[in-house]
């Protein structure tokens, strides 16, 4: 049943990057042998990773030059520390010089690495600044989200500032993590142990239906690659018109769905048939089922 599929979810960041780029085309910057590790973690008695949990480099995607970063969720939940963040920022600044076909960001992160406190916060804000500079220069940046740790916090914001997002149903995209929401708002408002609720709310399918993820793919490295290739052609200019359209879109979203208590209510209001079935469907059936509603509701 799983025969030909190679899972994006199960792969390490390194394996994902190798599969997404043309074979052997990756030239890594500041690879593990350089041993540019976190100066903060040893002070706390914590282990380091030789690449500080992120791989950055240059490669090719179907012959086209791209720059790419891949976060390793297994290391501290993919959280962004000083070195980790600087590598991503450096990659984005480099893209401004090299002007590749585009940039791929394989995101898997809880956000700021709290262990590194202000250094982590600054790192994320520098990523955002470099990303927006890249967008202003018209170089497409595509985010890919499909790992176990999801994409939250500051990196959630980063994802939404990209030209496009590809997600699988396993992937999660949000700002505050589910546990944080429960702590702040109470378990009646959001039970973080109710995994079905969490995935309904921040998972790939819902993000796709809301239009925040432009593609929903199967948990398959080849499908992520194909979607990335396709979306590198879909640059969204970062100009006033685009921003105003986005603002209008968000205002309409609140107007239409603001009183919905649950994602399933949103799907019903979108006009999806049998919304309660959506979570169980595989992505092919899911896309077929929601296609009419997506066409009707295109912003």
């Amino acid at each position, binding site marked *: 049943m799983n025969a030909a599929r190679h899972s994006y979810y199960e792969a390490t960041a390194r394996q994902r990057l190798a599969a997404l780029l043309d074979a052997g085309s990756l030239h890594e910057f500041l690879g593990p042998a350089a041993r540019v590790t976190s100066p903060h973690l040893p002070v706390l008695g914590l282990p380091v990773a030789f690449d500080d949990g992120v791989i950055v480099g240059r490669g090719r995607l179907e012959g086209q030059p791209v720059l790419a970063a891949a976060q390793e969720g297994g290391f501290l939940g993919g959280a962004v520390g000083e070195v980790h963040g600087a590598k991503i920022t450096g990659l984005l600044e480099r893209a401004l010089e090299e002007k590749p076909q585009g940039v791929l960001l394989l995101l898997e992160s809880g956000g700021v690495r709290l262990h590194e406190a202000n250094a982590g916060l600054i790192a994320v804000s520098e990523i955002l600044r470099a990303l927006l500079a890249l967008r202003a220069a018209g170089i497409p940046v595509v985010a890919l989200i499909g790992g176990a740790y999801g994409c939250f916090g500051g990196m959630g914001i980063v994802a939404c500032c990209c030209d496009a997002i590809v997600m699988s149903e396993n992937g999660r995209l949000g700002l505050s993590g589910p546990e944080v929401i429960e702590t702040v708002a109470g378990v009646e408002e959001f039970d973080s142990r109710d995994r079905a609720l*969490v995935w309904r709310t921040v998972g790939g399918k819902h993000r796709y239906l809301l239009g925040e993820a432009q593609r929903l793919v199967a948990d398959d490295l080849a499908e992520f690659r194909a979607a990335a290739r396709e979306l590198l052609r879909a640059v969204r200019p970062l100009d006033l018109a685009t921003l105003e359209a986005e603002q209008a879109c968000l205002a309409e979203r609140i107007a239409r769905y603001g009183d919905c208590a649950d994602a399933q209510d949103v799907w019903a209001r979108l006009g999806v048939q049998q919304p309660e079935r959506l979570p169980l469907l595989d992505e092919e059936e899911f896309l077929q089922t929601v296609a009419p509603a997506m066409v009707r509701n295109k912003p």
Partner: protein
Amino acid sequence: MRQWDTLAANRRARLARGQAMSSGKIVDPAMITALLEAVIEPGDRVCLEGDNQKQADFLARSLTRVDVTRVHDLHMVQSVLAMPEHLELFERGIARRLDFSFSGPQGARLARLVRAGGIEIGAIHTYLELFSRYFIDLTPRVSLIVASSADRAGNLYTGPNTEDTPAIVEATAFKNGIVIAQVNTLAESLPRVDIPGDWVDYVVVSPTPHIIEPLFTRDPAQISEIQVLMAMLVIRGIYAEYGVNRLNHGIGFDTAAIELLLPTYGERLGLKGKICRYWAMNPHPTIIPAIESGFVESIYSFGSELGMEAYTAARSDIFFTGPDGSLRSNRAFCQAAGHYACDLFIGSTLQVDLEGNSSTATLDRITGFGGAPNMGADARGRRHASGAWLKAGHEDAGASRMPRGRKLVVQMVETFRERMQPAFVERLDAWHLMEETGMALPPVMIYGDDVTHIVTEEGIANLLLCHDAEERAEAIRGVAGYTPVGLARNSRAVENLRDRGVIRRPEDLGIDVREAGRDLLAARTMKDLVHWSGGLYNPPRRFRNW
């Protein structure tokens, strides 16, 4: 002149006292504690149905509320201590003595209670032993049981989770005891009759459906590469080697990995139809791919598994189902089947010593045995032959001049557990537990002289081929890896054992450790299992992210 029908007369007296609290057999939930006070007498032997999966939770709670001046010093006999209320009975003086089999969730609290002198333990049994004693010297006077539904005549439908109920009721009802059942619903007619109404005295509808735990569900996402490697070793080095067609799988990620490797690794080795056709096991969701792939002919179960109801009903060629279509299980029969009609038992454990004795005892818990020892033992009463049984018997270097078969009893364990605790030790913690709690014997789960094979990530030790205790110890050291026990090996002796095939490493079986990855699993997530089942498997909420 001796009276010979005192039990019957006493039963009539209890029923007379209970009459005011019931309408026919039906008891109003508000009256249940009063009924218990009426029909139970001080010092009674009481079975409170605590099975592996289902619990008579409403009756347990109600029993904790009785007036202790009227109901006290009870002798509790039950399979499993699962609920806090089970121990509250002792803390409150309602019960004094306990005979049981397993206490997993309450193990730590039980240990504390024993140390504080608040409870007398008769003995810790295996399930089949306890059921057997219900018919000899531990017959319940009153049994508080749990079923799915009842009709007004007291007929009970226990459904897929029949479990221990028939054994309990048979012993109680036919020795003039009192049987009280809690049910989820009262119905005009039942899907089928699992317990005839003649055997049941009282029925109460509990305010909430009875507790039932999905104990045998394992999320494939948690299976590690090392567990995949060990599963490959077992399939190649034991199942294929001996041609094991009839077997029992215990609970755990190790056995789940084996089940999920059959349609991939097992298929690749050409083993379909040659191994793993008949099973004594609960309906593990991880067996679904092997069933769908055509490996499995039949499965008999001890109990059911939450979420598997629709799947088992739709696979009646495989599972045992009633004319109503739903599963029927029976722990007593399945234990016997696992013991006598299976050629192999396999399970994992926490500690192994140099004789091969294994134990799950840890210092601050009294957990008991469950059913593993019943099946994890040579079936010396067995007489019918099978290929695997004869081959193992032939290998038995310590056998007497009279040739016999041997049951394959396999213990599967990684050399190190969490936090680098060695699984192989010179002296089991079980000895300490015995000393601390005054047990008669160290609580050993599987005895070394019953074990035929030990499997670790380092390979397989075939204890059948060992000539004496010294060889056996060296063979165990040879698969004990880098634990202190393993590091103390005599390297030359271990190499010699390897040459003889007593120890077989992965490469000796043609297994490349680099191939041992999660890619080899037929299903890697709960959702994969649901897809394999054609949408029939409905995992409990805690296992789903949809």
